[in-house]
C-alpha cells in the first residue's frame, strides 16, 4: 500500500454549486513531508478543494483519504493531526496574541507554555501582549499560522497565507513556511502568486475552472514548456542584425528601450556578448510558471 507514505490521497472529487462546477474532477496525492501548492487565479476552485480535503465540505463525488482516514463527516480522531490556517481574522475578540494561542492550544490540551514557542517560530515574541486588532496584516497572518500549528499537527493547510501582504511581509512569511517544512510537516497551501509557489513548493498543481491543468515540480513544469530564454540588453549596445547573427540566437527584436534576444542555448550567446564587451544592462529571463499558465490556458495569468 502506498497509503503509508502518502499523507493525502484525493481521487476524482467534484463539487457543484447549482450550475457552477467549483471542483470538477480533481485528483492528486501529497507525500508526507511534502510542500504542495495549489495554484490558480481566484475562482479556480482552490479553496473548495482545500475545504473538501479538510473535511469541511462533502464532495458530490470522489473520495479523500487524509492520513489514511476519511475527513468527512467530522472525524474527531483526525482533527488533532491536522492544522488549518483560516482567514486572518479568525481570532477571539480583545485577546492578545499569546492569549489567542493559549486558548486555541487548550482546545487540543496543549500546555500554555507552547504559546510562547509558537510566537517565537513566527517571529511575534515582541507582540505577545498585543491585542489581535492592533496587529498589522502580516502579523495577523503569522499569528493565524501559529494558531494552526499550536497543537503540532502532521498536516498543515494554508489557504492564501500571503494574500494582501506587502512584499516584505510576504518574504518574512516565506521564512516561517520554510521553518515549518523543516519540522517535517506536510504542507498543502493555496496561492495565486505563481512566483512564490515556484520558490517554496516541492510540487504544484495548477488549477483553472475547477480542474487541475498540470501537476509537477515547478522546475519540471517550466522545463517541459521548452520555452526560449530571453537575453535582454540596453537598446543601442548592439545592432539588431548583429544580434540575430550571434551563435545560438533564434530571433531578436527591439523596442524603445531594449533589445531582446531569444535563445534555447543561452551559454554561447552570453559568452559571445561578453567577448564583445556589450553586457550593459544585461538581463537574462527564463520561463516561469506564468508562462506555463499561459501555455496551458492560452491566456495571460491574472491573479
Amino acid at each position, binding site marked *: 500500500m502506498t497509503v503509508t507514505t502518502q499523507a493525502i490521497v484525493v481521487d476524482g472529487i467534484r463539487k457543484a454549486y447549482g450550475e457552477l462546477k467549483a471542483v470538477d474532477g480533481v485528483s492528486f496525492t501529497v507525500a508526507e513531508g511534502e510542500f504542495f501548492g495549489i495554484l490558480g487565479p481566484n475562482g479556480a476552485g482552490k479553496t473548495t478543494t482545500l475545504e473538501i480535503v*479538510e473535511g*469541511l465540505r462533502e464532495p458530490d463525488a470522489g473520495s479523500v483519504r487524509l492520513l489514511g482516514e476519511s475527513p468527512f463527516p*467530522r472525524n*474527531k480522531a483526525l*482533527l*488533532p493531526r*491536522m492544522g*488549518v490556517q*483560516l*482567514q486572518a*481574522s*479568525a*481570532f*477571539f*475578540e*480583545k*485577546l492578545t496574541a499569546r*492569549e489567542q494561542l*493559549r*486558548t*486555541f*492550544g*487548550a*482546545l*487540543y*490540551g496543549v500546555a500554555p507554555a507552547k504559546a510562547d514557542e509558537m510566537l517565537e517560530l513566527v517571529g511575534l515574541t515582541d507582540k505577545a501582549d498585543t491585542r489581535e486588532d492592533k496587529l498589522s496584516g502580516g502579523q495577523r497572518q503569522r499569528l493565524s499560522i501559529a*494558531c494552526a500549528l499550536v497543537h503540532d499537527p502532521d498536516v498543515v493547510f494554508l489557504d492564501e497565507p500571503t494574500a494582501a501582504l506587502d512584499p516584505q511581509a510576504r518574504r518574512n512569511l516565506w521564512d516561517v513556511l520554510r521553518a515549518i517544512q523543516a519540522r517535517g510537516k506536510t504542507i498543502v497551501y493555496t496561492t495565486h502568486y505563481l512566483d512564490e509557489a515556484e520558490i517554496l513548493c516541492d510540487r504544484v498543481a495548477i488549477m483553472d475552472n475547477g480542474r487541475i491543468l498540470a501537476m509537477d515540480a515547478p522546475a519540471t513544469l517550466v522545463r517541459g514548456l521548452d520555452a526560449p530564454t530571453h537575453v535582454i540588453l540596453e537598446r543601442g549596445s548592439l545592432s539588431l542584425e548583429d544580434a540575430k547573427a550571434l551563435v545560438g540566437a533564434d530571433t531578436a527584436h527591439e523596442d524603445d528601450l531594449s533589445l531582446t534576444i531569444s535563445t534555447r542555448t543561452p551559454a554561447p550567446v552570453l559568452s559571445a556578448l561578453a567577448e564583445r564587451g556589450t553586457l550593459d544592462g544585461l538581463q537574462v529571463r527564463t520561463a516561469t510558471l506564468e508562462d506555463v499558465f499561459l501555455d496551458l490556458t492560452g491566456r495571460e495569468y491574472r491573479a
Partner: protein
Amino acid sequence: MTGAFKSLSVAMVKGFVRDKATLFFTFVFPLMFLVVFGLLFRDAGTDKLKIGAVGDGPVLAALEQSGVVELERFDTVEAGVQKVRDGDLPGMVEATGNTVSLRFAASDQAQAGLVQGIVAGFTQELNVRATGQPPRFQFTAAQVEDASLKPIQYLTPGILSWGIAVTAVFGAALTMVNWRRKQVLRRLRLAPVTPTTVLSSRLSVTIGVAVAQAFVFVGVALLPVFGLRLSGTWWLSIPVFLSGILAFFAIGMLIGAFTKTEEAATGAANIVVLPMAFLSGTFFPIDAAPPWLQTVSKIFPLRHMNDGMMDFLVRGKSVTAMLVPCAVLIGFTLVVGFIASKVFTWEDS
C-alpha cells in the same frame, strides 16, 4: 474536555470585560433607569389630600392632627372657593363656631366623595365625643400588605429581569454571529471540541454576568436613598432567574442562527427585547396596564420572568408561585432552543 471549557470561558470573560460598550450596556445603562426612575417616583403615591381651610375650631384641629389631609389656610371664604373653582383643590372647609361647612368640586366624583367622607367623619366623631357617651359601634383599622408596590419594589425586579434578558439575548446572538463571520466557529469545528462544550461555556459566562448584574442592581436598590426591601423568600427567585437566563439565551441563539452580521443581530435582538421590556412591566407595574395589554404581555417570557422575580424578591410569595413562571420559561427555552438548533449553521455560505 474541561480544559477547552475553561479556556473558552476565560476567553469570553476577557473579551467581555475588555469591551467598554458591552460593560456600559450591561451594567450602567440598566442602572441609569433604576436610579432615575427610583428617584423620580420615590414619593409617588404618598401625596396627601390637600383641602382648603378658613376659620378655626376643633374639627379643623382634628383634621390637621390626623395627618390624613393637609390643610391650606385662607383668610377669606371667597379666596378658598376660588381655588376650588379653579380646580386646584378638591374642596375647602369653613369652620365658624359650631358650624362646619364644606364646599367641594364635583368634577372628580371620587375625590368629592373622599373629601366629604373625611370631613363628615371627623365632625361626627367629635359630635359623639361631645355627648360624653362611649360609642356603640367600635371601629378599628389595620393595614394590609396590598398588591400595589412602592416604585422601587417593582422597578428592581423589572429592571433586573430586563438587564438579564439583554445580557442573555445579545451575548448569545452576537457571539454566534461574530464567531461565524470571523471563522472562529470553523476553527472550533476543526478542533476536537464538542458543540456542547462551546455552548455550555458561553452559557456559563452569561450566567456569571447575570449574577454580577443581580448583585449590582439589587445592591444599589438596597441603598437607603432607594429603600428596596427584600422579602424573606427572595432566594426562591433563583430558579426563576436561571430559567429566565435559559429562555433568553435560547432566543439569542435563534437570532444568532439566522442573522449574518452583528448589525443585523443587534437590530433583531432590539426588536425582540425592547417591546417586551415596555409591555412586560419593567418600568411600571403591569397591574396598572389596561386588561388587553396584560393579556398580550402574557405571551412574552419577560412578563413571566418579571412576575416570578417580583413574587419572590419583594412580594414574599410561597414556593407554589414558582410553578407558572418556571414552566413557561423552560417551555420557551425548549421550543426556541430546538428551532435554533435546526436553523443553526457553522458557516455563512
